[in-house]
């Protein structure tokens, strides 16, 4: 290893009998980074987190923390903090005792324990609950105490497994910002798990998209949104229009594709051989409803199916030949009207907004 990452994961694999829970998983986490494992249920997120925490052991692969090999090191020797989905606060201990626990385990003197507990309680803005039991706290408060307990011993990485899963929407939004702020202010390194794409986009420096026990794509939120590398990635993050195409070849530095009805579409140069079947993806907000004289790199025609005004944006659903529907999202420009259902519309978009995906 040439450079020193905070965390390095190489080719992890874990199976439960015939079930492959995780395979071929490799990633690096940098100091101070906020990396999110995002994926549908059963995609292996928890498995990966647990292996990194040392709570389950991989069948093969390696984990290094701070440059030190730790694949099979016990959890208590890893200098890792973990926040569980149900918080896992010790029900028979007060908040103070809960937070003091990791320090006790490290044989920190009592006087310092008291200071440290106060420090983190202030950070999570709950200094008044120190002597309560976990069950006397609200869900959001428990969440913050779990965070405090995890931060108090300054672990080199904090792992969080769907920490906001049990909270209602409003509280979740609040806590997202709070965790994000703590991350920025304290410079902690976080590996976060969620199956909520919006949450992942809001919080992460990078997202590791997982599907079916493997890593599908790893990159910044913008990478994943604008340059998805698979149909799964394109449809999991945000809305997308997917059209079946056949790659025609290279044309003026761009990849040309033909749809079933013979329309030619263009995209930035993609490494797909001519003649291959592929899918073309374009985000709804990149599509424009064209006037009769407007021109664009890519143009398709169809019949207007529905127009739905959702406050600031208006969605146009257009039925193409062959019954496929695409949607276009435009900023709402005054009261909607004018175009009727069934009317012929032309949709256009720039070649640069087009992504070619292997099927």
């Amino acid at each position: 290893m040439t450079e020193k990452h905070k965390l390095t994961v190489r080719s992890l694999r874990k199976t439960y009998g015939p079930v492959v829970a995780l395979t071929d998983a490799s990633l690096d986490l940098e100091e101070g980074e906020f990396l999110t494992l995002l994926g549908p249920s059963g995609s292996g997120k928890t498995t990966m987190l647990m292996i990194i925490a040392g709570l389950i052991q991989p069948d093969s692969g390696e984990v290094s923390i701070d440059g030190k090999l730790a694949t099979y090191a016990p959890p208590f020797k890893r200098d890792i903090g973990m926040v569980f989905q149900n918080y896992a606060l010790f029900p028979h201990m007060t908040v103070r005792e809960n937070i003091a626990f990791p320090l006790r385990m490290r044989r920190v003197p009592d006087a310092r324990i008291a200071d440290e507990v106060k420090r983190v309680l202030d950070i999570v803005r709950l200094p008044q609950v120190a002597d309560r039991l976990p069950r006397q706290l609200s869900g959001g408060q428990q969440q913050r105490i779990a965070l405090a307990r995890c931060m108090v011993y300054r672990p080199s990485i904090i792992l969080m497994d769907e920490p906001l899963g049990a909270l209602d929407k409003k509280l979740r939004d609040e806590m997202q910002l709070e965790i994000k702020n703590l991350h920025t202010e304290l410079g902690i390194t976080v590996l976060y798990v969620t199956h909520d794409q919006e949450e992942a986009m809001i919080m992460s420096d990078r997202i590791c998209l997982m599907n079916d026990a493997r890593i599908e794509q790893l990159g910044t939120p913008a990478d994943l949104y604008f340059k998805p590398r698979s149909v799964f990635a394109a449809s999991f993050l945000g809305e997308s229009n997917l059209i079946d195409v056949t790659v025609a070849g290279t044309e003026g530095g761009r990849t040309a594709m033909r749809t079933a009805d013979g329309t030619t579409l263009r995209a930035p140069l993609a490494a797909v051989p001519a003649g291959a079947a592929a899918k073309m993806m374009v985000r709804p907000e990149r599509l424009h409803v064209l006037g009769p004289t407007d021109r664009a790199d890519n143009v398709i025609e169809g019949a207007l199916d529905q127009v739905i005004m959702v406050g600031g944006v208006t969605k146009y659903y257009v039925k193409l030949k062959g019954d496929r529907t695409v949607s276009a999202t435009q900023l709402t420009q005054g009261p909607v009207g004018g175009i009727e259902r069934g009317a012929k519309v032309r949709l256009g978009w720039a070649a640069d907004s087009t992504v070619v995906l292997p099927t």
Partner: protein
Amino acid sequence: MTAAAASAFARPRRSWGRFLPLLPVLVFLGFLFLYPVGQLLWLSVVEKGSGDLTAAHYARLLAVPVYSKVLLITFETSAWCTLFCVLGGYPVAYLLATTGDKWRNNLMLLVLLPFWTSFLVRTFAWIVLLGRNGAINKWLQALGITDAPLGLIYNFAGVMVGMTHALMPLAIISMVSVMENIDANLPRAASTLGARGGQAFFRIYFPLSLPGVAAGGLLTFITAIGFFITPALLGGRQQIMITQVIIEQVQDLMNWSFGGAVSMLLLVSALFVFWLYDRALGMSTLAGGSPASQVGDRGTWLSRGFAWVGDLATAAIGRACDLAAVAWETVFPQRPDKPPVKIARGVLWATALSVVAFLAVPTFFIIPVSFTTEGFIQWPPKFFSWRWYDTVFESPTWIAAIVRSLTVATLSAGVAMLIGTPAAFFLSRQSMIGKTAMLGVILSPLIIPRIIIAVALFYFYAKLGLIGTNLGLILGHAVLAVPYVVVTVMAVLKNYDERLDQAASSLGANRWRTLWHVTFPLIRAGLIAAFIFAFVTSLDELTIALFVSGGLVTTLPKQMWDDALLKVSPTLAAVSTLLLIFVTFMILAAEYLRRRAVHK
């Protein structure tokens, strides 16, 4: 719409009518349990002829040193037995609560089988194993470890082995039910926070499991102080327990009031133990709640004392374990590139499996003995003959006993189902004030020493002319079976998705049709399991049969008991084998059905 109809829609089922399902159980237990027991207690404080209040019976109880001595022995024996049950049962319960489903279910079955197997059969098995000519003595001699047979039974050790074997499943089941509810993430969280195994266990898991230990200990203790089979068959003159005294007073000496006073003493002792428990931990822990001592200042002085000493002790033990682990690791360092050998888990498995073997294996020693050609029990048995089975089947007494037991078991289980099922439905689906207390009343026949119910029913039946009747037996056994039915059906309903019923009624089925066409078919397996448990309870029941049969009619356990008092013979071994096989089959069937019901 009329006003009445409108209000009927506005306040659905608020009337007393909704309590109807509880009525049968209340009437039944009121008549056959609460009233007779109350009467027995009343009897112990009134003068025989005049009806004046008197403390004479109690005065006599205290004046004769023999009784206080017996009481002391009873408490001492029960305390030791409780200690062994909890210590031996803890690793098993822990393993059951923390291992995967597949292992868990099968291990649980190995714990449940002895739980349901007749105390009598199990006690006979110990005689086969531990007697002068028993298997263990013979093996010891064959191996040259001892020259002469050791006195393994008819002493304290014998009673202890027998009672621990009898009651440990109860302790295990109580502990598992609490441990199962401990979040598996807590020890994990502790280890990510820096706790080694010892600290994670003793500071986190162990304190949280204590309510289970306490509940298990309490039930074991209360059951133990009512024991008489084991001390009578495996103990000596020094191990007479209080229940034996009651039996003697009532059955042989016909001394009701005094028997009542002794029963009262037993009941008071039991209640005193409950009270202590409540002081120390709070009754709610019995139902799986967490100890009151943890709710800050609400705890009593006793509980706070416990908590303080407990904290220090567990922290110290945890620390000691970890120092040992550290020492081990300096000798055998652990490598981050190799999966670690899980020594602690291995030790746990080994311990738990030995305990399970102690519970499951000995009973089977009764089987080979039943095929001996000789007229007495000794090890190894001389094979091979069916003659003892022939003896059983040719004996009108045994046949009558078997037939009566099967009849009584079937009918009492039926009665218990009819009474218990509506109550279970009500308790698991409706809310009411004092639900816990109600459940407490329904479960109390299980909790208070059985001998008290037996003596109380004896007295009550005597006046109604029910002594020596099948009806008396059936009703008496139903009192014991109702709690099992309620608990089992409630457990099944807990897993039943009530939305199915709502779906059915939204599709136009009325309440009865819903119950009949949707609910019952879905929980049928669970209901059958409840029936089987009730059936087996009655089939194994001795205490009530002993009193209520009045020596006129006999059930299978009673016949076995009468025989055993004379001599534990190969005939008994044959009967025991039949019973063992039958009950095992029933329990396996019930367990199979229960699993199907739960995993729907």
